[in-house]
């Protein structure tokens, strides 16, 4: 853990390099890794052997924890969440956990309430509704 300031993702206190980095939702990682896996399959006869354990475990994980499966929905989810001035980190936590209520959303990402943004409960509610619509029509 970094020394200077105590890291706390709940308050969005993570290293600057991570705050600026692009975060990826589980469903996005799933699309990328599955594509990568197919490429490996074409390149070698024994793709399992070509993959690192880190790759293999991560692929298993994101397959299980992707809320959205088809590429269009995945794109829509990021598009919807991008309308709300969220940090990359917040955006992905919401996209991964798919909270159903405003209270749940705030419990998962407490920082959305205290960064001086105009994100009131109505806005959060609208965001969650839009996300559930994507899921419904997938």
């Amino acid at each position: 853990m970094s020394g200077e300031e105590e890291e706390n993702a709940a308050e969005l206190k993570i290293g600057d390099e991570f705050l600026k980095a692009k975060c990826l939702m589980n469903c996005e990682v799933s699309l990328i890794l599955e594509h990568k896996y197919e490429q490996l399959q074409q390149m070698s006869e024994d793709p399992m052997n070509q993959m690192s354990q880190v790759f293999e475990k991560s692929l298993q994980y994101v397959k299980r924890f992707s809320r959205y499966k088809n590429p269009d929905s995945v794109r829509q989810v990021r598009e919807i969440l991008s309308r709300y001035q969220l940090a990359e980190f917040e955006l992905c936590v919401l996209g991964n956990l798919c909270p159903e209520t405003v209270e749940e959303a705030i419990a998962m990402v407490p920082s959305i309430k205290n960064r001086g943004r105009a994100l009131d409960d109505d806005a959060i509610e609208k965001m969650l509704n839009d996300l559930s619509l994507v899921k419904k029509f997938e």
Partner: protein
Amino acid sequence: MFLQSQLSWNVIIPPESLDSNGLALQKAIIIRLMDDFAAKKATKDLGYFLAVTTLDKIGEGKIRERTGDVLFPVEFSCITFKIFKGEVLEGVVHKILKHGVFLRCGPMDKIYLSHQKMPDYRYVPGENPIFISETSKIEKDVTVRFMVIGEQYVEAEADFRAVVGLNGDFLGPV
């Protein structure tokens, strides 16, 4: 959290892999980079290395004296995974002990949820031990939503460990 990172590394190509055909050389560099990347596993600062997504730039090669190897600086994008204190994540239970449970999450499998960090649950021993509360139970292969309390990098294994808890609203088995 999965992250997209841009990294600059040096790739070393032995003289026998050098080819006047630019495409073959590029292929040798890519293969070497992918091997190095997979072997690296993880670092303390960046977390786990999952996959190279794009190779953005191959710089001018420099010949190393004595061996004749050529060192190419490369810039590439990749996916990494790092766990943050305070982050809420979902994981899968893979081991249940008297004092707590171990979870898998992303590339990690040493995520420990101590019984002290789930005060509403009590241990029920048996062939398949479980933890139960009044409303839910934690058993093998169940998904649990938790908050990260702390993480630690183990240099010798190039692996992270984390301790997590269920103190908070909307945390627990899903």
